[in-house]
């Protein structure tokens, strides 16, 4: 069953045309990976889905409802969380304050909070610390924790492994695997080894166009296709 459907999405930033008729479907459940070179349009695609670019032409349908003309906050309240490339942490707020902002009522569901602590024990340890004082990996954990503290149907995650140590990337991968049991993840990633270990379905975007869609298993088995579509950006394949 399709959870998110993007059709003919065009986005221009200033005088530059960045996305050209981007079209792909994200099925419900598991991890859907959006791959592509630097500057291919992956981040722009995620930002357009959550409404951070002004009403791009084309449609974004979530659970059968067209959300492309909705305000970002209304899209978020439909059950879509966003973890941006820069993590979007509020550095001047404590970890606890960052987390409480992500709740609709201002109160934590104890079961979900316990799950967050189990996935990311460091957050419990630094609960009252200001977020700017966390390490890069801990900030990424906080960004993801914010996305799962409330029930969501879809989490958009933009390059979560960027600049992180291998041990943190491994822990993050384990967390995503667990989260994807109950919540669909649309993951933008350049670390192909990481993406391959998690992804069930995938799409490749290049120069603002979707150039390939399919299952991750098929794509991972076709090295010639990988070389052609991802070339130098493939890391640790």
């Amino acid at each position, binding site marked *: 069953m399709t959870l998110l459907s993007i059709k003919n999405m065009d986005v221009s930033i200033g005088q530059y045309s960045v996305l050209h008729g981007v079209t792909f479907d994200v099925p419900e459940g598991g991890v859907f990976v959006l791959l592509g070179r630097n500057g291919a349009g992956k981040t722009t695609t995620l930002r357009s889905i959550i409404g951070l670019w002004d009403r791009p032409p084309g449609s974004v349908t979530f659970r059968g409802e067209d959300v492309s003309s909705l*305000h970002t*906050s209304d899209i*978020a309240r439909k059950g879509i969380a*966003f973890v941006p490339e820069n993590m*979007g942490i*509020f550095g*001047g*707020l404590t970890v606890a304050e960052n987390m*409480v902002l992500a709740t609709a009522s*201002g109160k934590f569901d104890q079961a979900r909070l316990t799950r967050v602590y189990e996935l990311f024990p460091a957050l419990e340890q630094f609960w009252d610390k200001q977020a700017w004082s966390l390490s890069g990996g801990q900030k990424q954990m906080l960004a993801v924790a914010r996305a799962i503290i409330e029930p969501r149907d879809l989490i958009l995650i933009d390059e979560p492994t960027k600049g992180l140590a291998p041990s943190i990337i491994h822990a993050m991968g384990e967390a995503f695997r667990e989260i994807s049991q109950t919540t669909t993840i649309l993951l933008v990633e350049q670390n192909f080894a990481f993406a391959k270990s998690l992804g069930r379905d995938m799409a490749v975007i290049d120069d603002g166009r979707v150039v390939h869609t399919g299952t991750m298993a098929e794509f991972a088995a076709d090295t010639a296709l990988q070389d052609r579509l991802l070339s130098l950006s493939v890391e640790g394949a």
Partner: protein
Amino acid sequence: MNTFANMIDRAGGVFVLPVAIAIVAFFLIGAPSSWLTLTVAGLSMGLMIFLMASGLSLVFGLMDVLNFGHSAFVSFGAFVAASVLAWLGGWLGADSIILNSLALIAALAAAIVFGAAGGWFFERVIVKPVYKDHLRQILITMGALIVAEQLILATWGGTPVNVPRPHFLEGAIILGGSSLEVYRLFAFVVGALVYAGLYYLLNKTRIGLLIRAGVENREMVEALGFKIDRLFIGVFMLGSALAALGGAMWAGYETLITPALGAEMMVIVFIVVIIGGLGSIQGTLLGAIVVALMQNYVGYLSPKLALASNMILMMAILLWRPYGLAPAVK
């Protein structure tokens, strides 16, 4: 160098700066009674400037709006309060502290309500169409300031307007040979109460949490499901109301006001916001107290350098901390 910086941090960081300035001034002035008078005057002046500057800092920090029309609210607050006080002249002149207080409360409340309503209009009609465009913000808010000054001229005329004070705020208290004006002590208390209220709002409430988060990253607040536009309007109205309250308090301090009051205060308000750090209430309070103390001390020691002292202070602080003394984390 690092050892010195660590030592300052352990002593309270940038927040010891007003204390350091006061200590240096104590030795330069020599006479403790004059020093005490100047220090109390500086603190009360600082808290009145804080009232005017805090809204500008929040609007700048949260909305990224360069509002050069902010001083219009200072002027309107002063004139509205003066008019209410003149209208309630009977209460002011009565030999009753209750009637005196009611007149004062009515004047300050009228300034606040006028500031909030004017802020709503200003944000919806003038600022909203130019979000994300700094050049047009400067042009249109400067234009709005000119229109506001002309409106004040048309309404209250060009001659200076007298601002009556309640009896119980007249006179001075003599303390250890120092003369401490009652009105200045009152201004200090009002400013401190407003600071406490703002501190509570920003640090102990969900709205405050959203404002602090919005100052850092507006997009992320929206991506968490909150409509920041509504927050913008609320903060703009709050900032304008505080500016009007600051103007009303300043009017009582000066007792004679002209339509140029807001524009005159704007230079010092911008210096305070820049020194304190954008979007930070603590920074604005710190900046306001540092600027006001410096102006009072230098005005006493070397009157010709009084205005220049704040420019020099701003340059020195920006060389030391380019984002101001205590900016909001961005």
